[in-house]
């Protein structure tokens, strides 16, 4: 009996082991290796023949996208979208919304279970991030689908497609949105006006000017009327304790014009020197230490929120609650107006450091055709329509006109009370096709576009690093940073007291292995 039980146990364990090893997909071969993709019932395309316009037979596409809220009205939005897609392409799309909080988890499960997904949003981190999906071969290469079934999109996105291209395979299309970001400084206009410091604030172009202003506001704090008093002069930037972003940013120059931004390849604690192509551990660089020292001085001077190291409040929340006079924040073109609108406070803002366009920012949101797609051609054609048809974009962003939003005379849109659906402008295909919001101006999208087009591309644009081989090191290094950064970033701790220990723990966690891995990728990229 005992032998029988032992044998049964052994067999069961072996079966469990094999079950756990299963689920590997066959590597999706790029279409080029299989010959040209044949349109399923559509017209022939390419090679001087008539371009694809519409499928002969109705195609059905399963589309999965993120939702940020519960919207009863989305069904009608989907119906309106299908009216357009069925007329123009003979494609019916089943639009599935999944809450953003569970999107990554759900997509990972569905792809592992080989469920049919023809088109899906990429983003929100985790299993649905581009790096994760591309490294696990979950995306169909689009090299031959885009030129044939999405020619307008292909032409429009030529400049940005490298952000989602790995080893020559275009694996996704980035959402066309504002890519040019900067580190901004925002200050409360009402406090500046009350203290007569508006002109001085607008003239700030150096750390010295900024510190002089902070000093004046700090000294005048007690004399301010109750509605203008704050808990602190300088609020934290995010819920991690940092007052100002450090990732790839060099603030050593007193003159703001001398501030520099390096590409950090999507990893906050690294940066690449474009002159030498050297990957630097930026978090423990002299420049970052100087930044932490500056924050320490501010903290001791009483400028910074005393609970910044432990508070999980976001800068916008703090500003809206009247907790701080100023804060640093990453923003895009029109950020000052945007922040004033989101926080409910009139803010004066200017760019402290222009960052430019990086791969990691561009490919953080987009669309991909998973390897489980049954209608990749139809999915590509649908994608083309999403990026080129303003009607579809506005249905996704604003909903149904008259029910969810209305337009004013300037062509700006605003949500109505009781709107049954609300989207987000940066979520979908082409942000520049969406109506601007009230206050941005009717020509806002045109100005945004010009700002985007004029921004410099990182010299490493197109480099996506597959970090699967160093997952353990990445986790360990991040844990060390999470331990030290909250207190260093807000200046609660003097950097000198923990610096050597911080560096040692980082290298013990495997920082050098991370640097070497990224360096090899950079060297291969620059050839």
């Amino acid at each position, binding site marked *: 009996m005992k032998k029988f*039980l032992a044998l049964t*146990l052994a067999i*069961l*364990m072996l079966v*469990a082991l094999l*079950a*756990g090893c*299963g*689920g590997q997909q066959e590597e999706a071969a790029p279409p080029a290796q299989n010959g040209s993709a044949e349109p399923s019932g559509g017209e022939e395309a390419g090679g001087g023949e008539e371009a694809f316009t519409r499928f002969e037979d109705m195609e059905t596409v399963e589309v999965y996208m993120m*939702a*940020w*809220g*519960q919207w009863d009205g989305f069904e009608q939005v989907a119906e309106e979208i299908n009216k357009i897609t069925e007329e123009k392409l003979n494609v019916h799309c089943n639009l*599935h*919304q*999944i*809450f*953003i*909080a*569970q999107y990554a*988890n*759900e997509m990972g*499960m569905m792809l*592992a*279970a080989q*469920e049919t997904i023809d088109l899906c949003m990429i*983003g*929100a981190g985790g299993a649905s991030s581009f790096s994760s999906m591309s490294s696990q071969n979950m995306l169909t290469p689009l090299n031959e689908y885009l030129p044939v079934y999405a020619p307008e999109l292909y032409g429009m996105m030529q400049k940005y497609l490298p952000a989602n291209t790995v080893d020559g395979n275009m694996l996704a299309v980035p959402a066309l949105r504002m890519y040019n970001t900067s580190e901004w400084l925002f200050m409360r206009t009402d406090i500046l006006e009350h203290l007569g410091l508006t002109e001085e604030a607008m003239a700030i172009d150096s750390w010295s000017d900024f510190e002089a202003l902070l000093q004046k506001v700090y000294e005048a704090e007690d004399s301010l009327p109750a509605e203008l008093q704050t*808990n602190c002069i300088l609020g934290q930037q*995010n819920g991690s304790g940092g007052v100002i972003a450090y990732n790839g940013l060099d603030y050593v120059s007193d003159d703001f014009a001398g501030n520099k931004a390096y590409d950090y390849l999507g990893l906050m604690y690294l940066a690449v020197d474009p002159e030498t192509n050297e990957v630097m551990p930026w978090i423990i660089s002299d420049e970052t230490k100087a930044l932490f020292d500056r924050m320490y001085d501010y903290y001791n001077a009483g400028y910074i929120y005393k609970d910044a190291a432990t508070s999980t*409040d*976001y800068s*916008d*929340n*703090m*500003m*809206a*609650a*009247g*907790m701080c006079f100023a804060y640093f*924040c*990453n*923003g*895009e073109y029109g*950020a000052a107006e*945007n*922040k004033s*609108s*989101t*926080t*409910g406070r009139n803010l004066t803002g200017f760019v402290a450091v222009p960052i430019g366009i990086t791969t990691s920012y561009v490919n*953080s949101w987009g669309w991909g055709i998973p390897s489980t797609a049954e209608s990749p051609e139809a999915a590509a054609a649908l994608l083309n329509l999403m990026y080129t048809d303003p009607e579809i974009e506005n249905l996704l962003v604003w909903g149904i006109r008259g029910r969810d939003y209305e337009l004013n005379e300037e062509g700006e849109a605003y949500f109505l009370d009781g709107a049954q659906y609300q989207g*987000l*402008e*940066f979520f979908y295909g082409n942000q520049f096709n969406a109506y601007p919001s009230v206050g941005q101006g009717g020509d806002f999208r045109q100005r945004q576009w010009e700002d985007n087009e004029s921004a410099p591309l990182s010299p490493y644009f197109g480099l996506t690093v597959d970090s699967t081989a160093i997952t353990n090191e990445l986790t360990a290094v991040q844990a060390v940073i999470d331990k030290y950064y909250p207190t260093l970033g807000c200046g609660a701790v003097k950097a000198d007291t923990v610096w050597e220990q911080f560096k040692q723990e980082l290298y013990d966690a495997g920082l050098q292995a991370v640097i070497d891995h990224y360096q090899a990728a950079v060297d291969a990229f620059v050839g």
Partner: protein
Amino acid sequence: MNKKRTTDYTGVISREDIVYQVIVNVLLILLSLAAILPFLLILSSSLTDDYVLTRFGYNFFPRAFSAYAYEFVFSRNGAYVLHSAWLTLLVTIIGTSLSLLIAPLLAYPLSRRDFKYARFFTFLVFFTMLFNGGIVPSYIMWSQVFHVKNTIWALIFPGMLFNGFFIILYKNYFATNIHPSLIEAARIDGAGEWQIYFRIVLPLSLPILATIGLMVGLGYWNNWTNGLYYITDQKLFTLQQLLKNIIENIRALADIAGGSFPVSEIPSNSVRMAMAVIGIVPIMILYPFFQNAFIAGIAIGGVKE
């Protein structure tokens, strides 16, 4: 704790007793406060103006009273919150009832000394406590074999209906408290196995049924993982999943969208507290009704034949 009472025959309590009572009561009061005070803080915070809460921190008495947090949850998501609450209640009732029906049916034969294969099946049950297929195989099984995805059964069956631990608890209770002579007597009187089970065994097992029933019910009420894996249809979100999603959705967007998202849409501290209250209060209301049976169930282990 076996403390020898030193009460004399006149009923006068000794000094040692008084000291003992004072110490025990103080300790229990402190422990009770440690359990109650955080909830009072949450309740107070949920009724405090959010800006005041953010600026001045938490307080047992709201510095500036505001019901905005509840307005936000119920007006913005009101219909969904109530719908989810009813759905969660329904799932809890159905799931607990099924569990109380099925699990003892497996455990009872295992407790019978005259069941030839009891050890083998007990081993199988015990084995499942140590090993399982993992999340992905489970997902594939439930979604593609049993097709429960986006159905109410996805909230009831996967991983929740019963587990090996409860089966073992039932088994041990039956073995300890249902004497074979009772079953023998019933058999002599002409009762069949089903009659013995439903008319003798189950009525004598009310404490364990109540105890495990409460644990299973609480498990269903608090569960959100089944919803996370198997439910994407918002109409089938349980209360915990809905509340979790509301908070995490907006927090994810605040992380991702940065300045592109209106702060007023972000469930602030007071709204998070309100959601915690909404999740806890129904259980707090129901618990007193099950308390006696729960305590009796905990004492089961000390009862010997």
